[in-house]
């Protein structure tokens, strides 16, 4: 439970981000995306549209993907957060990162962290999605290079890699 300190304007939160625990004093109005970027220096999570549309800021919050521009940092008190920085394990790219690399799933790369976080949620739920299911799952992630075709192929490639690793 967040507790008020030094007047009503700041609160102390405890958040686990990518396996590391943080204790921070924040204003209630601080958005989760700004907490991750400005307070923790995790700038892989991007601010794109800032209006809950584009999905560049998608992170995993307690096992569900959220747009971190539309969640308050105080709402993540006590939560487990995974960002794009937490996807690589033991120096190895996550299979989804590998899929985007192998299938040219990015051009400018701005939308990629959000695309990868949303894809991870999809593949957890549905390890062998159809093209249509991938498109539906990534509806909330916009790519302004319009590289959607290769993004779908990247996720399909990742699904195959993950099936082989099981």
């Amino acid at each position: 439970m967040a507790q008020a300190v030094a007047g009503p304007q700041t609160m102390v939160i405890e958040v686990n981000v990518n396996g590391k625990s943080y204790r921070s004093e924040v204003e209630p109005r601080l958005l989760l995306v700004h907490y991750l970027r400005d307070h923790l220096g995790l700038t892989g999570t991007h601010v794109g549209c800032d209006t809950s549309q584009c999905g560049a800021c998608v992170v995993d919050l307690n096992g569900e993907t959220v747009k971190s521009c539309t969640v308050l940092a105080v709402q993540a008190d006590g939560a487990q957060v995974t960002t794009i920085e937490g996807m690589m394990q033991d120096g190895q790219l996550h299979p989804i990162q590998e899929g985007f690399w192998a299938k040219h799933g990015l051009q400018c790369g701005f939308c990629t962290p959000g695309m990868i976080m949303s894809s991870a949620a999809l593949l957890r739920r549905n390890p062998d999605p159809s093209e249509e299911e991938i498109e539906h799952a990534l509806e909330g992630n916009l790519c302004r290079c319009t590289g959607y075709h290769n993004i779908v192929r990247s996720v399909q490639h990742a699904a195959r890699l993950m099936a082989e690793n099981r």
Partner: protein
Amino acid sequence: MFPTQFGYHRPESVQEAVKLLQENPDAKVLAGGHSLLPAMKLRLAMPEALIDLHAISALRGVTANGAITIGAMTTYNQLAESPELRAISMIGEAARLVGDAQVQVRGTLGGSLAHSDPAADYTAIMLAIGAQLKAVGPNGERSIDIEDFFVDLFTTSLADDEILTEIVVSPPGGSVGTAYEKQRHPASGYAVAGVAAVIELDGETCRGARIAVTGATTKATRASAAEEALIGQPLDEKTIQRAADVAGQGLELNGDAFASEEYRRHLVGVLTKRAVSRAREDARG
């Protein structure tokens, strides 16, 4: 973009939340936050405090005990996955038409109804079903018929110190079918127009019909002309077309930069036809 300063409260019971609302008259209740937080970032809303309902576990989930009770903080995802709600097929189906995967994870049924956005989906769905709402205020709980709930654009009959807690729906009998059809705005996913239909069949005759429109009107509204065209008639293509033709009659429809009043009237007709046809199939089981 970020909101103006506010105090943040996370009560663990409805009673505590109501007390906080009384103590903070300029507070807003925070549910899924996907309407309120964007409005606060744009400074269209500047509440002095937020009362976040996420820690009140009693407000989440679906229970069936004769009637089906949906907690106000039940998310779209939970609606889509609830086995209890399969008896009313449009409730689960429509969840996948709201926003995107991230909105469906955070957005809540109670939040949507209490916000009464003119382009929301579940306002029309719950109006067509004829839901009973439960709200808790300083004087305890009261029931609100959904017919009396939507007052105007972003306005409901909830008092300032009341919290919407439950949405109660009755599972329909065997010969009742439901369907929701919408024209999604291509960028936002909101309903440019949406039509929810609940159809009761007696053989091939339409015994009961409740049709509700969203997106095209300032608040979710029954399309009574379409209902009258259906009730007591054989539910064939001709009857459905006649209902579609009159669906926009008597409704005050909006026009804006995205869609003119005339186009929305056309959409209401087309979507009524689709929704009634699918509800008929659903009723036939």
